[in-house]
């Protein structure tokens, strides 16, 4: 099992970059003064343990964690850009709104920062992030009173009620749509394309599985995100992809 880096994701990292000091939620405290590892990397080219930061986009997440621990903000930024989409998707799968999803994602990053010096196996961090985000999301959803058994958005062991599965060929019902509302314009639909349209006709559980399948970097991360055993991913994946293909074929 590898923790693949995807060029598509690293490309997203740089977009919309915010300058330090004007970031939302920038802590109002003195930042510990010490050389940034990316600067150090350029200043001391002989240091083989910290290659220039331009490699960070290609670096494995475990290495980014090690660099971030040494104060390399660029490495941390890549780590955030690479894993935030899955953490956001995990929170969303628990039925949380935008504010609460953001809260879950931020709590997860803060939990990593608070114990980043104690991380013994940096390669395991992506899995740990998914587990932590899920735990935070479930806890917040519970606090918000969104744990009604009839609406197990958090992939509990409770079987999904059949009534929530649309019949084959049935159009989308609001319940299963990832997003809906007036902002869902014709133009947006066109941009989303046929895949987006097909996704929205799938049962919510399949939407979540496919979304996390597309975002996870390993099966262990995916299993943690969905909170299901690694062994049961294969069949669920096959079923949901078949579901999607059927929708795309019609």
């Amino acid at each position: 099992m590898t923790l693949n880096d995807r060029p598509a994701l690293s490309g997203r990292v740089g977009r919309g970059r915010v300058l330090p000091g004007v970031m939302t939620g920038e802590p109002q405290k003195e930042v510990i003064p010490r050389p940034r590892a990316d600067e150090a990397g350029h200043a001391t080219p002989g240091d083989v343990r910290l290659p220039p930061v331009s490699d960070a986009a290609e670096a494995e997440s475990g290495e980014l964690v090690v660099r971030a621990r040494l104060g390399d903000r660029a490495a941390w930024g890549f780590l955030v850009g690479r894993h935030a989409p899955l953490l956001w998707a995990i929170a969303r799968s628990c039925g949380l709104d935008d504010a609460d999803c953001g809260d879950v994602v931020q709590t997860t990053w803060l939990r990593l920062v608070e114990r980043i010096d104690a991380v013994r196996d940096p390669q395991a961090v992506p899995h740990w992030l998914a587990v932590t985000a899920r735990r935070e999301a479930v806890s917040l959803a519970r606090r918000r009173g969104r744990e009604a058994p009839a609406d197990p958005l958090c992939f509990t062991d409770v079987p999904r009620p059949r009534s929530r599965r649309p019949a084959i060929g049935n159009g989308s019902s609001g319940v299963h749509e990832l997003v809906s509302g007036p902002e869902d314009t014709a133009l947006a639909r066109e941009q989303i394309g046929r895949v987006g349209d097909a996704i929205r006709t799938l049962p919510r559980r399949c939407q979540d599985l496919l979304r996390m399948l597309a975002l996870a970097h390993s099966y262990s991360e995916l299993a943690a995100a969905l909170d299901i055993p690694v062994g049961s991913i294969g069949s669920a994946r096959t079923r949901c992809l078949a579901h999607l293909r059927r929708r795309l074929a019609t």
Partner: protein
Amino acid sequence: MKEEPFLDELRAAFEHLDPVPEEVLAAGRSALSWHEPNADLAELTGEKDRELVGARSTSGIRLLTFHAPGHTVEVEVSGAGQDLALIGRLAPATVAEVRLRHPNASGQSTRADETGRFALTSVPEGLVSLVFDLPDASCVVTSWIRL
């Protein structure tokens, strides 16, 4: 994980349907600024509400207990909304500078007295963490909690 040709298309579709807001990414990037490399982490080991389970009313009091190697922090949280009060005790008892960290509000600080007791008021709800600077120059930081 990459063998499925659908995945790139899927990822793009989901990103369009429900993108991660830029402010969430920016906050995540800034999270490293909260790194306290020289602090001992006090993990949350106990939490209970004085109200009945599931009925965390605005008048309820939350009791939080954190443990770090050699230190215990107990905090009572009362109040509601933007006006929470944190009454706490550091054990073993010692004076300390107490800093409140809050990503969405300005930090505030107070002092723990000889009995280790401290109080913070007018704390807005949200994620918070307490940092204790001890007389021996060591530092204890509580795990982040959502108030």
